[in-house]
């Protein structure tokens, strides 16, 4: 187990650094093992958006926190691609530029992992291969409007 934990850790850390730099267009992030104790030590996380001096994760903004967490999720999916993944409004705090970067990375990962993405964000919807609309009827029952075609004209 030790080989596989350390080997996995180093791969996830490497991918986390990569996805963080891609999503933030620079900056630096990393995972470290507390007290260099590979058997029991916890995993610490550092994130520095480009140019800034962030002294603690709590200083990151709402959008920066979401983007950092997404970079870590994508790193884990890169190392061990789950067959499918459901993301419920993970892009809610992101501004338009960051949504575009999020979706670009998603499309790359989608060659190996199937994604079901719940979103209100137009830019995310536009990049989907299929779209399902959920409606709540007068009778308070949910129904699915199957709109498989992605060329739905998005009213905005």
């Amino acid at each position: 187990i030790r080989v596989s934990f350390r080997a996995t850790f180093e791969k996830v850390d490497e991918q986390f650094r990569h996805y963080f730099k891609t999503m933030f267009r620079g900056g630096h992030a990393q995972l470290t093992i507390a007290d260099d104790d590979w058997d029991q030590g916890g995993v610490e996380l550092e994130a520095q958006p480009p140019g800034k001096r962030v002294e603690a994760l709590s200083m990151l903004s709402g959008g920066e926190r979401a983007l950092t967490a997404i970079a870590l999720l994508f790193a884990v999916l890169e190392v061990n691609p789950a067959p499918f993944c459901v993301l419920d409004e993970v892009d809610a705090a992101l501004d338009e530029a960051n949504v575009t970067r999020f979706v670009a990375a998603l499309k790359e990962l989608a060659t190996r992992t199937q994604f079901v993405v719940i979103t209100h964000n137009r830019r995310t919807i536009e990049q989907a291969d299929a779209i399902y609309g959920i409606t709540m009827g007068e009778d308070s029952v949910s129904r699915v409007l199957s709109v498989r075609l992605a060329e739905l004209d998005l009213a905005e």
Partner: protein
Amino acid sequence: MHLKQIEIQGYKSFASKTVVEIDPGITAVVGPNGSGKSNITDGMRWVLGEHSGKAMRTRRLEEVIFAGSDQRPPAGMAEVRITLNNEDSWLPLDFTEVNVARRVHRNGDSEFFINNNRVRLRDIQELFLRGGLGPSSYAILGQGLVEEVLRLRPEERRALIEEVA
């Protein structure tokens, strides 16, 4: 392995049988507030073996059953069934197609199925745990939970990486 279909009936706001077919790639799910989108996420986590009421946004597990509305009576049972293409034998089963289902009745009785054979909850959990798809895995991220990984204590983050190993 990939997901082919999700069938929901009597689970939360999906009183009528609802089928969602999933293609490879990215499937977007959209709709107004309160329409039932997150109930689909909860249903996915539930069929994969989630047993925590808090994660299901309920106090007792029978509360996942359609509670009725002004125009419809409560349901007697909730069922979620997912169909998976297993041609790559990702799931250690000799089937090219696998379907997994979970039911709960008003009286609290639960039933679990793999390819229509009745199994225990533990069998489903072990089936998916292999590749990081356990009920509380990173692969199903509930609403508002994306930042959760930043709030975890270092030991908890270690458990996440161990799940991946």
